[in-house]
């Protein structure tokens, strides 16, 4: 498979235009189908509208659309016309629209995007904020009735940037991961045989497309290979996860990608009355990816759904990053992912994964083996190779690596050196299998979404009453939830404020409104509570220890 991403899509369109690409399920269970005819013809129309709004080939187009057929059409439509799409999350009602508009404005200026593709409701939400988005010409999909326009000739070449994926950013501005057509094509080409994709496969998804797992595994891979997708809105899924299982049963789905917390969520929160008669026997792979994977979560999921046809070998694991397009390693259908018991003391004290079956044992689960053409090294702080079973940073080389963070040479140079991507993840190799064990930095991962602690600390520090610069945000593992909980420790200006409920509310609200994430445990603390390093900086590690020792309670509220 060579060429650019639209080419295989155009082949499906010419050969089998009525084949279903994606079925967008509404919350009531009804669905709207996007065939390859609709994808290409509506895409061409949206592409023409982007061009009419001043989008030049090779230029960036920001796509801000909810779960809908037009989201998929805009993604491929942009590429069809040689534009480069950047998909961003639609501001939810929880988020402060002014903050969202300002962030969008800064991002659009950074990438010099000329066009914003959105809908009337989202545009209205952003318009009311008074933040100038006037440099962006807006295409409102829902005001653009279907009309026939010629299908554009693809103008991109293999080494052009195909799309920008945005991750959360440590500078307040999201970093755009630039991927070429060639990089994405190589990913699809190597990932498909690893998965053993078959003509009768069918993907079930509730994932958002602004995240690599949703975009690559559940939108681009299926479009290129002609694998149908049944997709739910992530907003719908979170209140009604049973809808995913009913969709699997109804449409005989075979594959799904989900972060670890979703396995726990489905195991604990779905009630039998919501899935009467539902069979999951059609599924051959539930792929656990994008946050640390826990063997216990797999066991709970299998116990809960064994009677519906789920077996241990149906639960796979994957190690992925947007910077490598998506998957770097993958377990397979041959056996469940390997699970090792490790000596806790050797692990923590010496950074070695020593197998152990008695005493203080911790579990590690394999993320599988590298994809064909992907090389993985485990390196120390100086970038030197470490032997097997030694824990170090995971470095990756493949033809699917990103070309850099767009217009961020310093951020790029920090992680991309001599053709290797230094992931910031920690892990070890054993017998060719990769085990991911943690993070080099303090990245917080809640329910599969990444948050940089410094972003949250800055936002909390700006709240009146909080001592600026004296805030620590931590992700604390919660095995029962299968993900991390967000903990914020904030010193207050005035000792009387430690019990101030209004201040606590303002802190919670500022984090919810900016990051769409709830603080699980917020502690307002007297000045000088937080520990400093010898160089006078507030460091997270010692304060994590102090929090766990002095403040954390084993009982969590909310479950």
């Amino acid at each position, binding site marked *: 498979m060579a060429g650019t991403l639209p080419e295989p899509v155009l082949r499906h369109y010419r050969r089998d235009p009525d084949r279903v690409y994606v079925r967008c399920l509404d919350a009531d269970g009804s669905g709207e189908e996007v065939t390859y005819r609709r994808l290409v013809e509506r895409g061409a129309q949206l592409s023409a509208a982007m061009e009419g709004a001043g989008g030049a080939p090779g230029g960036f187009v920001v796509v801000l659309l909810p779960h809908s057929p037009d989201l998929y059409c805009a993604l491929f439509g942009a590429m069809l016309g040689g534009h480069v799409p950047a998909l961003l999350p639609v501001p939810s009602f929880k988020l402060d629209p002014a903050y969202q508009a300002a962030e969008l404005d800064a991002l659009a200026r950074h990438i010099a995007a000329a066009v914003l593709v959105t809908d009337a409701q989202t545009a209205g939400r952003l318009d009311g904020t008074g933040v100038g988005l006037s440099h962006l010409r807006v295409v409102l999909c829902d005001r653009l009735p279907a009309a026939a326009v010629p299908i554009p000739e693809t103008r991109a070449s293999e080494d052009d940037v195909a799309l920008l994926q945005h991750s959360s950013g440590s500078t307040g501005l999201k970093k755009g991961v630039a991927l070429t057509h060639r990089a994405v094509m190589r990913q699809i080409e190597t990932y498909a045989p690893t998965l053993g994709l078959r003509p009768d496969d069918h993907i079930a998804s509730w994932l958002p497309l602004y995240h690599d797992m949703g975009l690559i595994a559940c939108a681009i891979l299926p479009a290129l290979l002609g694998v149908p997708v049944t997709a739910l809105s992530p907003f719908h899924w979170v209140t009604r996860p049973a809808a995913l299982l009913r969709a699997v049963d109804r449409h005989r789905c075979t594959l799904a990608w989900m972060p670890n917390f979703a396995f726990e969520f489905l195991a604990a929160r779905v009630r039998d009355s919501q899935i009467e008669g539902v069979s999951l026997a059609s599924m051959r792979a539930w792929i656990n990816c994008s946050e640390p994977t826990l063997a216990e979560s797999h066991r709970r999921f299998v116990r809960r759904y064994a009677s519906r046809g789920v077996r241990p070998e149906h639960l796979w694991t994957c190690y992925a990053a947007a910077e490598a397009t998506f998957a770097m390693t993958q377990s397979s259908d041959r056996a469940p992912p390997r699970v090792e018991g490790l000596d806790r003391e050797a692990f923590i004290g010496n950074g070695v994964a020593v197998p152990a079956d008695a005493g203080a044992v911790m579990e590690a689960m394999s993320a599988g083996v590298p994809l064909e053409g992907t090389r993985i090294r485990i390196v120390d702080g100086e970038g030197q190779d470490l032997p097997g079973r030694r824990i170090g940073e995971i470095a990756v080389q493949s033809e699917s690596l990103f070309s850099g963070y767009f217009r961020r040479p310093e951020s790029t140079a920090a992680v991309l050196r001599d053709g290797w991507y230094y992931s910031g993840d920690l892990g070890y190799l054993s017998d060719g299998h990769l085990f991911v064990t943690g993070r080099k930095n303090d990245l917080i991962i809640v329910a599969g979404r990444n948050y940089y602690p410094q972003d949250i600390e800055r936002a909390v520090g700006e709240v009146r009453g909080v001592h600026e610069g004296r805030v620590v945000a931590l992700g604390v593992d919660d095995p029962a939830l299968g993900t991390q909980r967000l903990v914020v420790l904030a010193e207050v200006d005035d000792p009387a404020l430690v019990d101030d409920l209004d201040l606590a509310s303002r802190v*919670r609200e500022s984090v919810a409104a900016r990051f769409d994430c709830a603080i699980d445990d917020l502690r307002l603390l007297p000045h000088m509570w937080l520990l400093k390093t010898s160089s006078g900086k507030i460091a997270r590690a010692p304060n994590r220890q102090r929090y766990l020792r002095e403040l954390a309670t084993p009982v969590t509220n909310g479950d």
Partner: protein
Amino acid sequence: MTEDARSATLLEFLHREVVKDRRRPLDLDTALVSSGLVDSMSLINVLAFVEDSFGVVIPDEAATAESMNTPRSILALVRAFEGRSR
């Protein structure tokens, strides 16, 4: 159950099981999700509780974070779908 008893039952449950700051008093108009007091993943527990306690089935499409953002709006959902069965 009277409307007042329902309100009290719901507020007591939210306070005991769901909110992330139990010191904070709740009233019918306290914002739950947009205030960061409740995460969206806990809403499913709220749904299960009101469906069981008040004998009502709230259709999937009606149960959103926005429609469940205050105790009052949750009670309005309950009223809107009373008498329906699954």
